[in-house]
């Protein structure tokens, strides 16, 4: 039934998208079965082998064949993804005057289900997961509809069995799921959809004399909008999935309470970070080339540099790919590189920070130190949002320059009124209360409270009022924006 629902859902996007998904599902399923078959053949042949050398040769042959299958599947699937996502951009870069276009719209969720399927292929290649023998069960893993638009990117060993298992209705689970869905809808419709127009009003037509204060406001609003849109969507996805008795991996963990940029990326889009870590970072960092380089660096530049620098390079590559994954635009790539370089610098300079903290007797456990780290990370992350949101090198330079040299705080309110607030004050005001609520909930969760449990334990009258106010706010948001799409569905 879930498979039927998923396929019906996806069929609304058009037959082209269905073909892409079908190719991914079929190729990755066959790959998993091929690995299993090759391994079984290796074991059978090894039993018949008479010498150790013969067994080694059998294993080498098996590994070679498995690698060919892996390479082919990766080529097909990443090739499809690259083609639909990047071909147009690449052609316009190489031949600016060309009218050539793929003529294809980006199939819904292709980035997410491709990465998810690739994780299945690599896990079965490494024998970490058993391959799925039933194509329809595998198709369900690829096409499971709640996660298609914006993730999370699930692993087969966590999700696959849940999808195929029998589930009975769990009232407690359902109650929690409904709370999660409502919270997600509040974030998406009453915060994200209310703020996106303000962000666009500030950044879609940047003038050379734009006050830096307005740029900073725009970036802050963008950070709130992006978090609310993405995490709100994810909350709804996770909540709907829980209604079916299927628990997916969390994708956000109060990211704006991170104490470092590295910590931020362990709290924001967690599934993508984990995917990059397991399938790009570790394979890259553990290559023989990297190992040799580590050895050389340790010998010549010391243990810290030897151990840290290769990991930093791998990190920068990962974040370059994260930027590229978001889109074939220079500002996404710059944003990715910015994050990678800052994390690399932070890791490389770690001994220096330790020495400074010791020198100045910094109490690392003091609450103020913790708050300071959070605020510092908040600033660093928001600098990154400059690259993420502002398109064009010229506009980026203008915005950075004016932030530093033309802040003009006195112009903030008049300019914001002129571009957005005068005509949309009610819409903007509608989002303020939910923003405070989100902050409060995030703070409670960061302190380890089970907010969902606390809500469910409230007196029914209080709970009814809370639900009623949230529902009214969501409904009222439709007065201004009739349900915009999800930002991350574009990736």
């Amino acid at each position, binding site marked *: 039934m879930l498979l039927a629902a998923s396929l019906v859902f996806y069929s609304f996007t058009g037959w082209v998208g269905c073909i892409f998904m079908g190719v991914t599902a079929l190729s990755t399923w066959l790959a998993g079965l091929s690995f299993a078959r090759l391994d079984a053949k290796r074991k059978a042949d090894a039993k018949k082998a008479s010498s150790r050398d013969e067994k080694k040769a059998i294993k080498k042959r098996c590994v070679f064949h498995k690698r060919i299958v892996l390479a082919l599947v990766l080529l097909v699937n990443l090739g499809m993804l690259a083609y639909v996502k990047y071909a147009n951009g690449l052609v316009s870069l190489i031949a600016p005057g060309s009218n050539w276009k793929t003529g294809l719209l980006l199939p819904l969720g292709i980035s997410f289900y491709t990465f998810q399927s690739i994780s299945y292929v690599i896990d079965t290649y490494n024998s970490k997961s058993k391959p799925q023998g039933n194509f329809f069960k595998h198709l369900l893993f690829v096409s499971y509809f709640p996660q298609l638009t914006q993730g999370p990117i699930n692993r087969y060993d966590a999700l696959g069995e849940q999808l195929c298992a029998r589930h009975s209705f769990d009232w407690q689970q359902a109650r929690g799921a409904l709370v999660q869905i409502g919270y997600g809808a509040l974030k998406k419709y009453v915060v994200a959809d209310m703020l996106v127009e303000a962000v666009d009003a500030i950044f879609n037509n940047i003038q050379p004399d734009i006050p830096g204060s307005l740029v900073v406001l725009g970036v802050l609003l963008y950070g709130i909008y992006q978090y609310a849109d993405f995490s709100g969507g994810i909350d709804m996805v996770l909540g709907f999935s829980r209604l079916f008795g299927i628990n997916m991996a969390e994708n956000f963990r109060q990211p704006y309470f991170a104490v470092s940029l590295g910590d931020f990326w362990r709290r924001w889009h967690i599934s993508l970070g984990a995917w990059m870590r397991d399938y790009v970072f570790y394979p890259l960092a553990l290559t023989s080339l990297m190992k040799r380089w580590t050895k050389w660096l340790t010998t010549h530049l010391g243990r810290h540099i030897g151990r840290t620098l290769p990991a930093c390079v791998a990190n920068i590559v990962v974040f370059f790919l994260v930027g590229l994954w978001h889109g074939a635009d220079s500002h996404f790539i710059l944003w990715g590189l910015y994050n990678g370089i800052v994390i690399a610098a932070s890791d490389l300079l770690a001994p220096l920070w330790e020495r400074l903290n010791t020198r100045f007797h910094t109490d690392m456990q003091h609450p103020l130190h913790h708050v300071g780290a959070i605020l510092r990370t908040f600033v660093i992350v928001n600098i990154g949002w400059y690259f993420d949101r502002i398109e064009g090198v010229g506009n980026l330079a203008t915005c950075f320059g004016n932030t530093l040299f033309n802040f003009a705080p006195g112009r903030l309110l008049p300019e914001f009124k002129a571009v957005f607030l005068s005509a949309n004050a009610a819409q903007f005001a509608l989002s303020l209360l939910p923003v405070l609520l989100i902050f409060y909930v995030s703070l409670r969760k960061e302190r380890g409270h089970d907010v969902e449990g606390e809500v469910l334990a409230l007196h*029914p*009258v209080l709970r009814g009022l809370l639900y009623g*106010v949230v*529902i*009214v706010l969501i409904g009222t948001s*439709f007065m201004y924006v*009739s349900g915009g799409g999800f930002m991350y569905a574009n990736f």
Partner: protein
Amino acid sequence: MPTSDELTPHTEGAAPETASQNASAPKKSNRVLRAILSAPVILVIIYACIQAAAFALMPYGSKSELMWHDYREQTDLDTIAIGSSQVGRGFNPLVFDEVCQASSFCMGTPEQEPSESFIALREAAENHNIKRVIYGMDFLKFQGPYQMHPGRPFLVEKWKNDSVFERFGELSYVLSGCDWMMYSRSLTWLFPWVEQHISHGASSIPTNIRMRLDGTTLAEGAEYNEPGWHYVGKGYGNFEQGAQGDWRDYNSLNPYMPLNSRRIKFLTDMADYCAEHDIEFIVVVMPLPSRSLSSMRDYYQARTDSLSDAVTSHGGQYFDMNLGTSDVIPSSQGMFSTNVDYFMDIQHLSMDGADAFTSAVGNLVKRLEAGEDLSDQFMTYDEAITLMEAERAARVAAESGQSSQ
């Protein structure tokens, strides 16, 4: 043979398990009972919050609310006018009643879809002895995709007096032929204030609530919601003569889109219903100012011919008042469409224009019912435009001649 000691261990062992099971069972049943009891409480509170929001945010005295309220007070109607805001601000029943010695009512409301017009027609026909239905044709209501949803103000206000079955039947009718569930506006029936809400911002919420509670009439409420608009009576209201409207380019506000077959089907449904119930179905194309008319040069004639064919082939009568001679639609100066006093904006009649138009429709109806053939009293689009342009040129020449003197 087992001793009683050997027999007792399992019973002794069983006692603590039974005790703990018995202890947890009441807790679980208490939880379930609490959940069962709290669910209705929560649902009632959520419903109350939604009703409170609707009470505060939905405007007291919307056009649809006012129209349906006044309609329900009418007795012995024999004529109704249905259509969009062009009719709501263009057909004055008081004038029509005087011209035709009739008892009419204007059921035109803003953005009224042909499907909703059918519902209004049927409602009136079932509850009054309706002899004639005047449908004010607005081309914009027949082009482009047909989108409908259950939260439409016209339907919401109409259903206040209807049973669930009637609502369901009418909803099925208006939703047929459109993929309404694909749009987020399909949820607006849950949040009715999305479609119609106070227009003066959050600061007018207290006034809105006060008007609901202190006996303010719906007409006064409607006039508060739209400053400058006055309710004349019998479903008709308009802005003061001389009020300034939107005179932006017609084509840029209403770009061309092909006619929609589903919407035309609703039109023919109206004609068929009238034919079955021996009711005159008269379609009159609402007048437009000459600058709006001239922007439809590429498609006007074909469009009006298509709609005329649809109506007449189903037993109705069709009159394009933009193409009528001065014998059919007289004007205080020049042609009707070139008379700037008759229009408030690019598509709505002013007070004077509505009176003049309604008088013309009334006389048209009288002549039709006397058996007169009026087919030679209507021009082609090109002829009408040529006349308008000649008139405009003459006026400009006269004005420049006067100014040089």
